[in-house]
């Protein structure tokens, strides 16, 4: 029976505060939750590192690593072998790891990197590296040492036990989910908003989402797509709540009663207002949108000012200074891109004026809005909102 062991590293910079325990404990809890149905595993913390260990036959190491890569607060992970800090045992393990690597990859060069935390060990780091390197060369005569650009590095960490591994897999970074409060994301189904939600979630914030559904102008498939986006996001955010708010009545009223060039801006303000009420009821401390300056007419600085003044909660816009190509790259990294570009174009384009105002004035907006029965319409929309736990 072989022991399965994953070394989880987090960035110590966050832990120099007095609330180090809070972060560590939350991270451990999140790791346990994410790995919950993979089989028996122990998650322990020692010397500022977390170890996930399992002797369960069915524990799927590859899947576990994949999931850990998406846990905020983790800087990197490695699948490691642990042996007693005994020189013969270390050498034997090193040979085993290299044999396994060579059976899978056509590696030709390598080097050994050693960290010695256990200063009582009789050799120093360079000595250990050189000696283990020589031992590997003796066992695998085709390999060569290359200290500059090796095909692989064998890492040896000498501590109370000794850990050997060959790969450091970068993970999500950020702060553990649940250490940063809660925020409400306005989710549209496009490329931007999921990326914006992810950026804030990365800072340890629990993110919930609100989606505005306008049947028959938007289809059931568009709604399904948003739910799917939430599922992808929740692989990072440890689950989320999605509020689906019916928006048809409001949209039609705006369309009928307000000037065409102000349709979008007034609609955005209603979305913000509704999201703010849900945020209040939900304990959320901010709204999140995927806006970036100048991307579309409703995202000019003038438009953002008008939209922003609809609410008093802070509005986080993490993509504000990003180019579309940068957002696309991020969405691909998160895994939402492929779903976001599914072609369920909805008929909300009917509500977009041919020439929307790019420099709307707040004064005019308030004036145009005043004909609408805001309180009633928002109350009805909230009343019919549906909550989906993703």
């Amino acid at each position, binding site marked *: 029976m072989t022991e399965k062991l994953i070394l989880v590293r987090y960035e110590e910079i966050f832990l120099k505060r007095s609330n180090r325990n809070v972060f560590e404990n939350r991270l451990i809890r999140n790791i346990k939750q994410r790995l919950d149905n993979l089989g028996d595993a122990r998650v322990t913390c020692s010397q500022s590192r977390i170890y996930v260990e399992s002797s369960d036959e069915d524990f799927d190491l590859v899947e576990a690593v994949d999931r850990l890569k998406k846990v905020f607060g983790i800087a990197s992970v490695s699948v490691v072998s642990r042996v007693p800090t005994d020189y013969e045992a270390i050498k034997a393990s090193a040979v085993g790891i290299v044999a396994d690597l060579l059976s899978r990859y056509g590696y030709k060069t390598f080097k050994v990197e050693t960290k010695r935390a256990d200063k009582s060990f009789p050799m120093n780091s360079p000595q250990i590296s050189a000696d283990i390197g020589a031992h590997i060369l003796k066992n695998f005569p085709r390999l060569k040492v290359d200290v500059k650009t090796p095909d692989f590095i064998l890492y040896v960490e000498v501590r109370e036990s000794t850990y050997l591994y060959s790969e450091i897999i970068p993970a999500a970074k950020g702060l553990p989910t649940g250490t940063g409060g809660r925020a409400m994301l306005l989710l549209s189904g496009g490329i931007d908003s999921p990326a914006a939600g992810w950026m804030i979630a990365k800072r340890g914030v629990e993110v919930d989402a609100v989606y505005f559904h306008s*049947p*028959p*102008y*938007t*289809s*059931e498939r568009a709604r399904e797509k948003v739910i799917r986006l939430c599922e992808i996001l929740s692989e990072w955010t440890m689950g989320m709540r999605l509020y689906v708010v019916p928006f048809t009545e409001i949209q*039609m009223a*705006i*369309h*009928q*009663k*307000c*000037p*065409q060039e102000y*349709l979008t801006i007034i609609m955005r303000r209603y979305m913000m207002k509704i999201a703010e009420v849900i945020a209040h009821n939900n304990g959320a401390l901010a709204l999140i949108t995927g806006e970036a300056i100048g991307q579309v007419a409703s995202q000019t600085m003038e438009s953002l000012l008008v939209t922003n003044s609809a609410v008093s909660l802070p509005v986080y816009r993490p993509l504000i200074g990003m180019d579309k190509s940068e957002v696309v790259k991020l969405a691909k990294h998160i895994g939402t891109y492929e779903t976001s570009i599914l*072609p369920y*174009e*909805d*008929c909300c*384009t*009917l*509500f977009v004026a041919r020439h929307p105002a790019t420099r709307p004035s707040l004064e005019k907006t308030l004036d145009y809005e005043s004909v609408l029965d805001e309180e009633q319409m928002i109350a009805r929309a909230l009343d019919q909102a549906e909550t989906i736990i993703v």
Partner: protein
Amino acid sequence: MIYFDNSATTRPYKEVVDLVAKLSYEEFGNPASLHSFGMRAERILEQSRKQLADTIKADPEEIIFTSGGTEAVNLAIKGSAEALKRSGKHILSTPIEHPAALESLKALESIGYEVEMFSVDGKGLINIGELKEKLRKDTILVNIMMVNNETGVIQPVEEAGHIIKNNNPGTVFHVDAVQAYGKLPIDTRRLMADIMSFSAHKIHGPRGVGMMYLRHGTRIKPIMSGGGQEKQYRSGTVNVPGIAGFACAAVKKTGRMDQDNRTIKRVRERLISELKKRMPDRIRINSPEDGLPGILSVSFSSVKSEVILHALELSEIYVSSGSACSAKKNSISHVIKAMNIPAPWSDGTIRFSFSGENNEEEAKTCAKTLEDIMNTFSLKTGP
């Protein structure tokens, strides 16, 4: 639920589902196996082939089973073009074919074939005179669908067959009969098609089953490599239960064709008259009166088709739209475009397609719901 989307697919007959389930479980032998259990499956297969051949007055030897209509059309077009490439590269087709045909033709075009389209009139009909003009010595294939899937227009395929065969007997004539089968009589002895394509699920049969009629002496090249089933034309383990289900559905559907057509005609006429009564100025009937009764294309003036479709689904009424509601240019269907239906009609096109399982009451409910939708969702512009 009111299901007016029978050209997309139909509900399989109960006896078809039962038969497919029973054969899948009990007669699971591979008809290509040498043992007697495989032979039992082969017997069922050949019996089904005979039954299906009879429905179109063909010889069982002329039937090739496929995975469905799309595969049959692909095999017909690509397979005959490949087989005849030394005789010429010229192909004629209508522009209002199913994507299975249009995309196959596009693929041929990209490898050097010359594809020429007929024009169609406001009804979507081709002009026989034009066919005669365009037919050339090096025309290897003429492709015409018998009934258009969006409007129900019936092309003069019998006449076209005569013209083709009198002028250029070597030209292969392919008729896509997917929408026509079981709804119009098809007689391969009179219709001078060399190849025809059929699908099971459009006539209450199972999904994933289709067939190709290949007249004796017509040459095609297979497009799939494998074990050489179906006389080398279509490799792959033959789907015996599905094919038996197809035969069961075909026998029943062709047997009750007249009865179903009468029902369907009543439903269609009821829907048209209710719509004309309720909103005479806001509708435009795109389907020709002498088209297939089961397919009715209607354009609405003030609401986009996708909005109508989603609004109808809220009342559990299911239809198809002739265009997608997007800002993109190519959202209007190629059929509606080819027929030159003017805007805003073209943006509000809905296809209703009926089966013998529908009734007039459903047509009335549907018209009433449409009236409500027009009143609720036609967007009036603000000040």
